[in-house]
Structure formats: structure tokens, C-alpha cells
């Protein structure tokens, strides 16, 4: 089979926002992750697929978990990984995002995984023309964290539908409740969009002060009463209370928050029997989740970490594994 590759440059795909994914894209990523997950059971947990490709982890914000997850994913696919942390680098000496990007481009990065404290930085990187590589958003400000949403959807599908039965399926009709600090949570935002795309019904539960303005335009319901929503939930996603972002008084005391919006054993008992408890980590035990719930068999926190590597392998493979990306031909503002 002859195939002339021609001289045309690769059309690069990006993963900047979960809201950009179509249902078919999202299901393809989940199905691919299911095959990637099986590699973890092999004696040699490595595939030659991205040999010779370079993946740069560009982290302007500390996140050991997300970084090592991307690092493990890239290495299992045999890509070369360069970790670029803003602390102690040229960025702390005042280098702009543009100059950093041009540096990475000069080093031949095929993909840039970016975590940034400002919302929109990955979008800027993807659309600026500074780099030719694929851009993967690993969390930007309070905007999005698409791979977290994908790994949550993957975990949900495996638990609620089944690893094999789930292939090709979405989450139609599943009811997912997201509880906690929605205002500061890019995880919540990405999850609302992705879960909606996959057909799930999403309900946000939070103190009124932690519900973002404009939430009425999100494809979800909002409730202030956790106990009323729990019996109708197939999954409850507990968000971390982000103490580092709590510079205003969003709730009176931590004890009151835990009492009204925390998940303890008694509340968990009100959920349907096969419902699961999710947490993106790191957990504040005693705050949004009690140790009893965190250590129960219904809590998927540890599974989510393992699934994160599979999902990131799937994303990197689908973006970099061929002459052009199989998913997310990222829509620019003009074409939306």
C-alpha cells in the first residue's frame, strides 16, 4: 500500500477545552483509554507509538499529580519528556509566555502540556501561531481542566456501565452531582460541559457564594440542598475546598461547610446502592469528605489517578500518533 506523505505540514489538533469536544470525539478518547488501560496489566508497560516525539510539560503552577500523570503517560508511549517548571526558570526572571513558547518551539516540542494560573493561556498558545505543536490544557486558572473531566467520565463509565460493556457508549441518563467550590473549580466547569455532551444530567450543589455568575447558561441544574439531591444521584463528585483561593469569606466556618456540604457516612447511605463517590484529589479529609467515605469501596479517588494515566495516554496518542490528529480540531473563536 503506497502512501505518499507529501510535503504538507501536519495539521495539529489541540485539547484546550472540554466544551470543544463532540460526543463522538469524547467517546473515541474513552474507548482509546480503555485499550491503554490494558497496557498497565502487561509485564512491559510500554508502547513504541510516540518514539521520537517530544512532549514538554510547561507548568506555571505547582501540580505534582497532574505533571507526573502526564509524564507517565508520555513515557509509556515512548515519547521524550521535558519538564519545564516556572519556578526557578526564566519565567521567574520575567520571560513572557510568548518567549517561553518560542524557546520550546526552537527545541522541537511536538506537544506542549500547559498548566497556567491565568484562564485562557492554553488558548493563546494554541491560536497564536507561536508554536506548531499540539497544545494540551492541563488546567488554566478557573477556566478548564479537560483531561480531568475526561478521566472522571472514564471512571464513571467503567463503574456505572462496565469496562467492556461501556465501549462505544456515552453516559446517557446518568445523574451526576458535583458538590462544593464550583466558583474556583475548573474541574467542575470542564465536567459540566463534558458530562452534558456525553448525555448525563448534571446538578451542581454549592453554597450560593460559591456558585459562579452566569451559571444559568451552563447545561446543568443548581441546588443548595445536598440531602435532597443525594438519593437521585448515580455519582457524587466532591470538589476540594481550595483554601489557597479562599481570600474572601465565602462561608462562615469550615465546620459549617462540612456540616452542610461535606459527605459523611450517613449521607453516603442515602445514595442509591451502586452510586459512586468521586474526588479529583488532593482530598481534605474532614472537610468536604470524611475518612469513612474516602476509604470506602464506593470512593473512586485512587482509581481516578490510575485512569488519569490511561486518559492522558489516549489524548497524546490521538493528538500525536498520526499524521494529523484524530480528535479536537480546535475551533477558533471565529469559526464557533
Amino acid at each position: 500500500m503506497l502512501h505518499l506523505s507529501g510535503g504538507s505540514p501536519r495539521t495539529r489538533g489541540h485539547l484546550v477545552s472540554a466544551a470543544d469536544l463532540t460526543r463522538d470525539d469524547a467517546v473515541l478518547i474513552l474507548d482509546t483509554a480503555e485499550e491503554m488501560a490494558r497496557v498497565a496489566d502487561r509485564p512491559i508497560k510500554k508502547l513504541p507509538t510516540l518514539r521520537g516525539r517530544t512532549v514538554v510539560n510547561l507548568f506555571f503552577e505547582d501540580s505534582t499529580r497532574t505533571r507526573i500523570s502526564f509524564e507517565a503517560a508520555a513515557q509509556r508511549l515512548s515519547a521524550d519528556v521535558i519538564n519545564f517548571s516556572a519556578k526557578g526558570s526564566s519565567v521567574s526572571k520575567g520571560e513572557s509566555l510568548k518567549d517561553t513558547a518560542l524557546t520550546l518551539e526552537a527545541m522541537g516540542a511536538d506537544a506542549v502540556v500547559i498548566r497556567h494560573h491565568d484562564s485562557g493561556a492554553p488558548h493563546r498558545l494554541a491560536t497564536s501561531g507561536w508554536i506548531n505543536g499540539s497544545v494540551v490544557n492541563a488546567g488554566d486558572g478557573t477556566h478548564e481542566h479537560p483531561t480531568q473531566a475526561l478521566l472522571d467520565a472514564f471512571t464513571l463509565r467503567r463503574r456505572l456501565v462496565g469496562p467492556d460493556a461501556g465501549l462505544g457508549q456515552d453516559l446517557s441518563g446518568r445523574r451526576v452531582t458535583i458538590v462544593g467550590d464550583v466558583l474556583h473549580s475548573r474541574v467542575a466547569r470542564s465536567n459540566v460541559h463534558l458530562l452534558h455532551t456525553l448525555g448525563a444530567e448534571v446538578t451542581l450543589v454549592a453554597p450560593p457564594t460559591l456558585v459562579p455568575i452566569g451559571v444559568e447558561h451552563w447545561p446543568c441544574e443548581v441546588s443548595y440542598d445536598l440531602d435532597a439531591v443525594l438519593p437521585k444521584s448515580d455519582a457524587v463528585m466532591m470538589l476540594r475546598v481550595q483554601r489557597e483561593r479562599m481570600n474572601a469569606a465565602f462561608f462562615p466556618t469550615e465546620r459549617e461547610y462540612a456540616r452542610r456540604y461535606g459527605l459523611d457516612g450517613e449521607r453516603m447511605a442515602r445514595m442509591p446502592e451502586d452510586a459512586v463517590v468521586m474526588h479529583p484529589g488532593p482530598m481534605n479529609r474532614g472537610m468536604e469528605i470524611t475518612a469513612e467515605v474516602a476509604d470506602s469501596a464506593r470512593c473512586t479517588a485512587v482509581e481516578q489517578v490510575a485512569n488519569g494515566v490511561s486518559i492522558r495516554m489516549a489524548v497524546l496518542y490521538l493528538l500525536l500518533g498520526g499524521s494529523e490528529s484524530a480528535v479536537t480540531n480546535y475551533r477558533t473563536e471565529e469559526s464557533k
Partner: protein
Amino acid sequence: MDTTVSAAGPARPVLEAPDIARVLTRIAHEIVERAKGADDVVLLGIPTRGIFLARRLAAKLADITGATVPVGSLDITMYRDDLRLRPARALARTEIPGEGIDGRLVVLVDDVLFSGRTIRAALDALNDIGRPRAVQLAVLVDRGHRELPIRADYVGKNLPTSLRETVKVQLTEEDGRDSVLLGARPADGQ
């Protein structure tokens, strides 16, 4: 390797359902003969149609030997040498039987043997999964035009073709009927 049937030109059947059944029966007997029984044989089909052929062979081996033969699948997508020439493609299932492949006789099963590149990728994939005692290859059709030093141990039908022709295998499980079709590639084709 499956070659898509061309839209142009009528495709001529070279094997029909009874021929395919006979051919698979013969291959099953050959496997038993060469392996002196089929005690340590593991059949691994290469997606998509190799899997169905492997399952059919396993059923025939069970009839002949009275023992069940482990059968699985081996997806070679991530080991292909032409990944960079085409868009990233969806993965198929790799299912290694519980017995594993270490120390066993692995028989790879595919529908059409053409350039040999699929089989090279399969050998690489096997290398990451375990260390078989030996690896053999069974194909329904060998259409020639090898680009690598690879040959099949069991061949259903040797089918001399030109590069302008296409070979399409249809199996009931996937296509609703059993046949092997020889067609012409469209003139503006690849």
C-alpha cells in the same frame, strides 16, 4: 491486512463459503500435525477479520483434538511503521488468553498476507507481551508482494495478484457472508 474493495470494477469471487470452510479445516489439521497435537497452541487473531478466523480455527482444533485451544486477539495499531503517514486511528482490542503466551506456540492468524508489515508489527507487539516457544503464521490468502522477509506457515490460498488489484475478505461475523473477492483498484487510487 485488509484491503478495501474498490468502487470501480466488478469484484470476482475467488473463494466462496464452502472453500473457506475446507481451507480452514485443512489448516487446522496442518497445525495439529506440525505441533504434534495442539497442547500448547495459542491462537491470536489480528483485528478485525483475523479474530473471526482464529475463533473458527479454534473450534476446528477443538473438534480434532478434543481439547479447547486458547484464542485471543492482538491489535498491532500502536506498533505500525506507517503511523506518521496517516491520521491517528482508533485502537482495536488486544485480548491475551489467561494462560499467557510464555513458552507456548503462538499461531498468528490474519486474513490477507500482503506486504508483511502487519506481521512485523505483530511480532514486535508479541515481544512486549511475553516470550512464546515459537511463533507461526496462518493466513487465509497470501497475495504476494512482500516488502519484508516474512512468510506464512499455513496458507489457505496462494493468490498471485498485481498491485493494481484488491483482495477483499468477507466473513459472516462482520460482513454477513463468507467470500474472498478479487477486484481492480480505481485508476485514480493510491
